């Protein structure tokens, strides 16, 4: 298509919208609702995954040993545990390291007090493993396995309910997906109706175009443009709304929730919108394209 014809068809597309305002608004509204749901679901999924991932990295099991366990036993255990597929890595903390950490934490202001223990490490039996897991859901299994091992005095696990979080995510995701599919169908239906009305209004014009030898593509493209424009407008509105919603959500989480627990975290605005903007625009334009193609293929024949 030539450049001037492109602009002609684009202009005709806008003209079509102006002729057909009520249908236009209805189509934009449903597409906006659909894209909004998709955007919301995407933001939630991205953030739930993010929180799970963060939690995963911080979840660890701490293991303390029986007093009679020797260093060689510990080295041997370290090697064995490291081979479990649920385990991503094992960090060994020797009694000396434990004492150093403890000292720093509790005798920071008066180190001379700590000096009294210099040759008699009060944490001599505090050697430990810190075990990181490949996936959070393995925690219970690994804990049980560790508890059944000999030489282990105590197993401490993180109290995290990541599985509950991901279950919630699945249910919410399923419900939103159903809503999105319904909205998607309604959007396509409404757009194709809008375009069909436009085609009916311009039937005489289309007839003349065909008699003088306009190509199918030329006859159809104003309507396709009309559909895509409607779709894009329908996508931009929820993007703007989501932008403000997301920004206040971040503020809320940072100011209110994170004081209760650091488990509450949100992805930065940019990270989410870098994905959300193209997905929404493509979705909107796609709905417009499909809706108008249905209408033009059905009602414009040479």
């Amino acid at each position, binding site marked *: 298509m030539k450049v001037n*014809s492109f602009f002609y068809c684009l202009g005709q597309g806008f003209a079509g919208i102006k002729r057909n305002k009520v249908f236009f608004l209805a189509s934009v509204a449903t597409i906006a609702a659909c894209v909004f749901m998709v955007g919301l679901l995407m933001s939630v999924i991205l953030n739930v995954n993010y929180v799970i991932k963060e939690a995963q990295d911080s979840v660890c099991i701490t293991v303390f040993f029986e007093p009679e366990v020797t260093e060689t036993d510990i080295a041997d255990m370290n090697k064995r545990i490291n081979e479990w597929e649920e385990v991503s890595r094992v960090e060994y903390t020797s009694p000396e390291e434990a004492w150093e950490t403890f000292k720093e934490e509790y005798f920071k202001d008066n180190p001379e007090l700590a000096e009294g223990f210099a040759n008699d490490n009060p944490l001599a039996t505090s050697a430990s493993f810190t075990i990181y897991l490949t996936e959070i859901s393995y925690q219970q299994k690994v804990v049980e396995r560790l508890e059944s091992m000999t030489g282990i005095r105590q197993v401490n696990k993180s109290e995290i309910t990541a599985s509950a979080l991901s279950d919630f995510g699945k249910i919410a995701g399923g419900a939103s997906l159903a809503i999105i599919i319904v909205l998607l169908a309604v959007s396509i239906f409404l757009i194709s109706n809008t375009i069909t009305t436009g085609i009916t209004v311009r039937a005489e014009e289309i007839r003349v175009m065909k008699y*003088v030898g306009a190509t199918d593509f030329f006859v159809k493209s104003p309507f396709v443009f009309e559909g895509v424009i409607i779709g894009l407008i329908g996508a931009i509105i929820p993007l703007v709304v989501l932008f403000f919603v997301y920004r206040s959500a971040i503020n809320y989480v940072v100011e209110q929730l994170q004081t209760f627990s650091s488990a509450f975290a949100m992805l930065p605005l940019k990270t989410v919108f870098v994905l959300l903007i193209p997905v929404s625009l493509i979705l909107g334009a796609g709905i417009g394209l499909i809706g108008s193609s249905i209408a033009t293929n059905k009602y414009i024949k040479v």
Partner: protein
Amino acid sequence: MIRLEKVTKTYGDNHTHALDHVSLNIQKGEFVFIVGDSGAGKSTLFKLLIKELQPSSGEIYVNGKRVTRLRRRKIPMLRRDIGVVFQDFRLLKDRNVYQNIAFAQRVISVPASKIRKNVAEVLTLTGISEKYRSYPDQLSGGEQQRVALARALVNKPKILLADEPTGNLDPGNSKIIMDILEEVNRRGTTVVVVTHNHEIVRHMNKRVINLKNGIVVNDIGEGGLRA
């Protein structure tokens, strides 16, 4: 330029044929009248030529193209070679004369600068230059007919098909239209005119194809012989 071989057209499951084994041959540069009673199949013939309809049987060739086998996406190119004037004008009421004619060029992607020149040319040829800003319902029947003619001519077709171009016109206006058609023919366009007006047919002394119930009953003056 136009060749029909045993063309038959039956609408739906109707048993009467709108066209019944019609064979004819129209040379490049000819001026031909097609006459016949209402329902004889004249408009059907035009629709077959621009592939708005597909014949039930037979072959049609236009400008070297085998119309009956032409692919769907090649139809626009066929139609750019054929200008058609319809019985009912089919002008767009929301556009003025200039816009109606320019529209025909616009939609086949002619550049704007050429459109201005070409439209001016056909406005002059059809003698409606002064009315170029009028809307169709501000024009007389004869003027509307000339706009329809200008629109059919602006794309410089090789063939002009005119269905009843003088249908509702008085003798004066009919004469103007016929003069334009003759001028167009003189410039090299093959012209085929459907008409009921025997006065004009007699006066013009051209080839006349007479259709009756879808059959060519006589073809006077074919091959340059004028009756």
